[in-house]
Each structure stands twice: as structure tokens, then as C-alpha cells.
């Protein structure tokens, strides 16, 4: 019964259409071109994803935001506050597209979606972080940014992200050191002098390492222009020039 229901005969119809030229084979090169285009698109998306990730890492490094991770849980929360979430979201969307592209290939659809996404995310993280922390790729782009095409140059101008007033985070220059207190020049608002209350549990060696004229990263609660610090770190390699670039970008 079932077999009778499904008996059809379309062979002659199809062969007639083939013979008459109504249906024709697409040439092989069309498929080859499509494959090349898809591979190129996949590779391009992968490159952009790695580039954005390496930029995020570079931005955290050059802005010294990653130093916040050394201030315990509160430092971690402060790090999350200044993290460039927009770039990360863009990167995740790109990885999602990358995953969709790879599913057109045999090795892509054989993997469960979630695992493939995790593998891609890990690969982008490893290459992105490795490129920033293991090579001078980003530093050399930053140095040559004026000579690079404008979109890339402008992109790297944003790498050094300023601390925002009121968030309790600043790069400051020490003007005076008191008992449990510093008087500093606030780099966030060219030359403003503010007080910083040091944490009670600040290790003695860190306190003793502070000297007048040092540039320090301060993390804490900011109230009425006074920062109650929970973390302080000397930034010996902080280039004043970079601070100036940042200040210009804030108050321009």
C-alpha cells in the first residue's frame, strides 16, 4: 500500500529537460570560486576577531587597567567597570559569525555548536593575548599610527583610555606624603590637587616605596574630591607623554 503511494515516474520529464537544455550543469569553477570566497571571508572574520581581542588586551595594558587585577576583588570589580565591553561584544558577535561560516565546512558541522564556539573563543583569546603580550605588534602600530590609514590610526588613538572622574580610579603624581594620606596631582583634570586616604592594610613595603614625584595608580571610593583608596601601585614606566595624550583626549 505504502509503496504504491510513493511510486512516481519523472525520469523522462527530467531527461527531456536536460536534453533540451532547459536544465544545465553549473561549471565546476563556480563552486571553486564560492569555496574560495567563503574561506576568505572566514579567514577575514578570524583576523578581525583576533585584532579586536589583541586591541582590548593592548588597551588594558597601555592604560594600566590590568594593574587593577592586583587589588583583589574590589580591584577586579573596578577592572570590570573600566573594561571596554563594547569591543568585547563586537568580538563575540564576530566569533558567532565565524562559527556560522565554519558550519559550511564538514569539520564545522560535526562539532556541537557550543563546543565549536568555545574552541573559537579560546583560539581568538590565545592568539589575541599572545600577539599583544608576546610581540611588539600593537606598540609598533601605536608608534606609527600617524602614518597608517586613518581608520586604524584613529582606532589606536583610543587605545589609551582615560580614567573617568568620580569612579575612584586615577593616575596621580605624588606631591606630598603624610601619615596614611597622600596629596596628589590628579591627571584626570589637569593639575587639580586632591587628597588620597591610604588603606589601613597597605603593606609597609609599598608605603615605603612611594616617593614624591612618582606616578601612581590609585583605586578607591571617591567622595567630595577625596579618594579613599583600597589599592595603590607605583607605575614606574608611566610615560608623562602618554598621560598628556590622555588628558588632551578627555578635555578636548
Amino acid at each position: 500500500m505504502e509503496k504504491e503511494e510513493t511510486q512516481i515516474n519523472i525520469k523522462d520529464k527530467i531527461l527531456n529537460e536536460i536534453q533540451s537544455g532547459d536544465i544545465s550543469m553549473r561549471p565546476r569553477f563556480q563552486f571553486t570560486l564560492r569555496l574560495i570566497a567563503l574561506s576568505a571571508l572566514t579567514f577575514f572574520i578570524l583576523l578581525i576577531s583576533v585584532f579586536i581581542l589583541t586591541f582590548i588586551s593592548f588597551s588594558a595594558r597601555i592604560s594600566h587597567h590590568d594593574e587593577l587585577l592586583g587589588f583583589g576583588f574590589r580591584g577586579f570589580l573596578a577592572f570590570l567597570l573600566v573594561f571596554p565591553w563594547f569591543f568585547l561584544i563586537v568580538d563575540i558577535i564576530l566569533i558567532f559569525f565565524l562559527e556560522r561560516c565554519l558550519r559550511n565546512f564538514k569539520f564545522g558541522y560535526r562539532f556541537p555548536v557550543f563546543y565549536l564556539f568555545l574552541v573559537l573563543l579560546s583560539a581568538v583569546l590565545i592568539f589575541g593575548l599572545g600577539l599583544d603580550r608576546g610581540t611588539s605588534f600593537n606598540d609598533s602600530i601605536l608608534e606609527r599610527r600617524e602614518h597608517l590609514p586613518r581608520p586604524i590610526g584613529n582606532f589606536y588613538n583610543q587605545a589609551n583610555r582615560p580614567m573617568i572622574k568620580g569612579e575612584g580610579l586615577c593616575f596621580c603624581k605624588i606631591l606630598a606624603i603624610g601619615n596614611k594620606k597622600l596629596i596628589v596631582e590628579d591627571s584626570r583634570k589637569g593639575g587639580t590637587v586632591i587628597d588620597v586616604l591610604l588603606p589601613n592594610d597597605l603593606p609597609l613595603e609599598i608605603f615605603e616605596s612611594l616617593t614624591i614625584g612618582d606616578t601612581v595608580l590609585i583605586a578607591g571610593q571617591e567622595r567630595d574630591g577625596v579618594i579613599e583608596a583600597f589599592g595603590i601601585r607605583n607605575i614606574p614606566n608611566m610615560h608623562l607623554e602618554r598621560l598628556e595624550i590622555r588628558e588632551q583626549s578627555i578635555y578636548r
Partner: protein
Amino acid sequence: MNKDDTDITDESIVMLVQKGDKEAFGLLVDRYQNKLARYGRKFLSRVEDIEDMVQNVFISAYENIQNFDVTLKFSSWIYRIAHNTFVNALRKNTKSFLTIDFDTLLSHPVYDDPDIKEREQKEMRVLIDQGLEDISSKYREVLVLHYLEEISYKDIAEILQVPIGTIGIRIKRAKEALREKIDQKKI
């Protein structure tokens, strides 16, 4: 070449077609037209113009035959084209903007045991005849391919382009859904 020769493999026929033997394509139509019609009828459940759809499958196969890699299985390839054609027909009736198939997210263990399958085959065919129309197309399809067309999990995974574990879990859920629907009918 004697084109009635049943010993010649599908892939060898494809090679002939790729080299320009148009008549040889008729052999492939002979071999698959009824299988695809049965697959389409069961999968689509309420579609009348199955002959036109199967014809479209063969037209698409002929147009794209240069893209077929003869080291792979032709049956999986033609079923893949049929799957796409039937899914497009289903989509005409449903407005789905973006669907996420949660079965494909994680890996699932696979038990494609031929002995168990043989024992189940008869029972499942009876159940499929009784209640296939009442379960979702996603589940209908795997049951039809596995129990009626007798295609292995691995080949179904190639046809649907999903991980093999997804086929295992989908067949398990499809059987549960089918049994549930039949039980409900009895009540």
C-alpha cells in the same frame, strides 16, 4: 556501458554524468525517485505536490553535480538536497526568523546498535504509520530516515549536517514523542 547494470555504484554513475553522459543521470533518477518521494511524503506530511518537489530535487542535483565529490556517498548528498528542498517547503508555511536547535549545542552519547535497530524496526514502522503526522517535522524526519529509509546515524548526520550525537538524541526524543501521541490517541 549497459545502463541497466545494477552493479555500478551511484558514484561511478555521477562520474559519467560529470563527464557529459546526460543519459546516465536517468539511472540515478530511477534509483532514488521513489525513495525521495516516500521521504518527502512522510516528512512533509500534508503536501500534495510531492512529485514536483522530487523533480526539483533532481533538477538541483543535476545543476550542482559538478560540486559532488565522488569519494563521498551520493545517497547522503541527494538526501541532503531533498532535505533542503523539503525544509524550504515547510518554511513557506511557517514564519521562523531565527531558530536555535538546542539539540546541536552540546554533544550527546550515541548508541547506533544494529541488533537493537533490527528488533525495533518492525515496531517502529507500525508506530510511524499510526502517529507520524502528529509529531514535529524535526522528529518526523529522523524517524523516516532511520526506520523507513534505513539510513545509519552517521549518514543522517551528514544529510542534516549536524553532529552525530544530535541524531541520537533526536531519535530518542522522536520515539518518546511518537509513543506519547499514540497513547493520547488511544485514550
